[in-house]
């Protein structure tokens, strides 16, 4: 949290912190130099985060102001008071793919290939690689074969997650994890379908001047909400009460 705390850390821990914050340091950097660089990086990261925070999130962060590390706990072991380690499985030995919608333009996918599938694929000399196929669907219950469009994202065998930019809003997406063996594609698993909202007003401007004016009072511009496709009508913007 501050220089005093950083100066109490060992050089190994300072290096670990420096790595965490992408600090570019020389191998022979002294502790005090590392501490200064880390402090600067942390301050920058914090300032960046605070710039991105809206009011609700800024206030909420203050609840957790008291903490043992405030971001500096490079060596704290994840154990309970009896020394029991809270180890968890990193993977679950199954082939699965999950798609989570983050906002109208981005989704997050995580996946896993079971050891058996992985062994089967990699044992084949013709194994060419993996990709994610992103399907845009016309309805939420449509199958991938009824997709209105799709695109592919090559992934490596060690990858396990990906943020996917969604080109369209007000639609549906589903993804598949696909292996290519000897030029033939094999769908390993597919995700559930996610509903992507418009992320903007659905109705064209001008249809109802009264409600447009009421809307202009609703804090449309101060909502700090990303809108997509520039759908906030000029007519409404012109009505915002200064």
């Amino acid at each position, binding site marked *: 949290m501050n220089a005093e705390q950083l100066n109490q850390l060992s050089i190994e821990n300072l290096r670990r912190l420096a790595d965490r914050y992408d600090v570019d340091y020389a191998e022979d950097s002294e502790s005090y130099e590392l501490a200064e660089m880390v402090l600067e990086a942390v301050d920058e990261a914090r300032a960046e985060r605070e710039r991105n925070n809206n009011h609700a999130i800024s206030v909420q962060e203050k609840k957790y*102001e008291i903490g043992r590390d405030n971001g500096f706990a490079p060596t704290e072991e994840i154990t309970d008071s009896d020394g029991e380690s*809270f180890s968890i*499985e990193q993977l679950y030995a199954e082939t699965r793919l999950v798609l989570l919608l*983050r*906002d109208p333009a981005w989704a997050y996918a995580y996946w896993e290939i079971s050891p058996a599938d992985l062994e089967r694929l990699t044992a084949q000399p013709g194994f060419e690689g993996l990709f994610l196929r992103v399907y845009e669907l016309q309805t939420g219950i449509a199958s991938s074969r009824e997709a209105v469009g799709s695109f592919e994202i090559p992934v490596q065998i060690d990858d396990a997650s990906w943020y996917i930019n969604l080109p369209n809003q007000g639609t549906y997406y589903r993804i598949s994890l696909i292996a290519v063996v000897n030029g033939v594609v094999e769908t390993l698993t597919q995700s*559930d379908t996610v509903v992507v909202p418009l992320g903007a007003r659905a109705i064209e401007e001008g249809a*109802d001047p009264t409600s447009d004016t009421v809307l202009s009072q609703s804090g449309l511009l101060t909502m700090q*909400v990303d809108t997509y496709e520039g759908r906030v009508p000029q007519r409404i913007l012109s009505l915002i009460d200064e």
Partner: protein
Amino acid sequence: MSIGKLMLVLHAHLPYVRHPEYEHFLEESWLFEAISETYLPLLRAMDNLETDSIPFRLCISISPTVSAMLRDELLQQRYLRHVDTCLELAEKELDRTSSQPEFHNLARMYYELYSSNRLDFEEKYERNVLKGFDYHAKRGRLELITTSATHAFLPLYQSYPEAIVSQIHTAVDQHVEVFGKAPKGFWIPECGYYPGLEHHLRDAGIGYFFTAAHAVIFAHDKPHFGVYKPVSCPNGVAVFGRDAASANSVWSSEEGYPGDPNYRDFYRDIGYDLPLDYIGPYIHENEIRIPTGFKYHAISGKQPDKWPYDPAAARETVAAHAENFVYKQRRLMGKLGQLMGSTPVVTSPYDAELFGHWWFEGPMWLESVIRKIHATEGEIELVTPSQVLKEEPPQQTIQPAFSSWGNKGYSEVWLDHTNDWVYRHTHKAIERMIDLVDRYPDESSLRGRMLNHAAREVLLCMSSDWPFIMRAGTNVSYAVRRVKEHVHNFTRIYDSLSSGDISTEWLTKIEKRNNIFPNLDYRVFRRRSSEIEQSKILKMR
């Protein structure tokens, strides 16, 4: 004659932090600070209004984790210990500042604050602060509602209706146990809404919930009155959209009231300022400096030298800000009334801990706003959600849109590179919990205890607070520890049930440690027809 209805909604929430395995545990201070700086001062403000016969109506959401902690004997004892430590420091501060009048008065202010806190906590509320909220609720001044059991950010769990149902029903059950009646409304954590959530809310007897403004404004059907009238979901559950415009003047630290130079500075604290040999006993072990709650400076503008806090100047500023808030409400409502041809309903929700903890003068401001609204002689009417729905049921049905009140309005805060790893594990724990109910549909005795505790651990790992803290970067190791702890505990039970290797000693230990929801029945995770649930959601847009 009323020109508008103002609905003030406070959401009180902290994650479940209780560590009996440690004699002192730093993060338990989150609760102690909230009791000292927010919950007791808010209750004091309500008592003052009652004493002066000023009527008021507020809606307060008290999260199940906060309720559970406030009722927990161990945490009650530890709060008393915390207050006693604060009082000891206050006495030392009275001595230390005896030759500095501007600080001495503040030391006295803190001495009086902590003395009142101790008295109210120990004697008035018999260690259970919830009694204070219940008191005002029973007199019709407060409408108490709940939120999801461990404050899970629900849109990221929408593929698991079992988890959504568990979060909602567990919360409702606990609310009934604590307050003796079912909640009519529900605070969806972080205003995190996805289409279809209302089905689960209705099934739990919930009649309304709150959303971010764009849930309503970006809905597929145009809301005729924006966020200024409640609307109805297609299944009949009512929605109140947040009025961002009126909220910003209170939330913003820069343009809003809390950033006024006369108000107490949040950051400057004697825990950082005074020599270690003096302040050492009142900060964290190993001489790690933390805030003590003793803050002697005003915000003072942007200059490096802050001036001493002046409570009288702050009180004057509170009165001016309360006046300004009421003036803005009156102006907004007047304009809206003309446009709408009927009385607008302005919904202003806030994090309860904003009042007092971050904005020290917040409870005083709230009291002052209520007094000034009373002085309008009915021009502005303070209302509760149920009162609004009774007087004027929603006239329009819309399907709200996916949204939250987080940055940029969606899930970014709870799903980014700092915290996305969490969901692989929490989702798996949920899937396994559902499998366990399939495999053991009717267990009691030891296996029943294991299953109930497994469900408890799943709920705990879903808290939105852990990914939130990871992103905030302020206490990452603790948040990581908590996710791993709960997933680990759950997995150990899951494996034990398969292998038959059950350690009752270990089970008893973690039951005592993570003792939230003692009456939880693991069957709340019973498998739902997810295809039907999913198809309901996918048909909406």
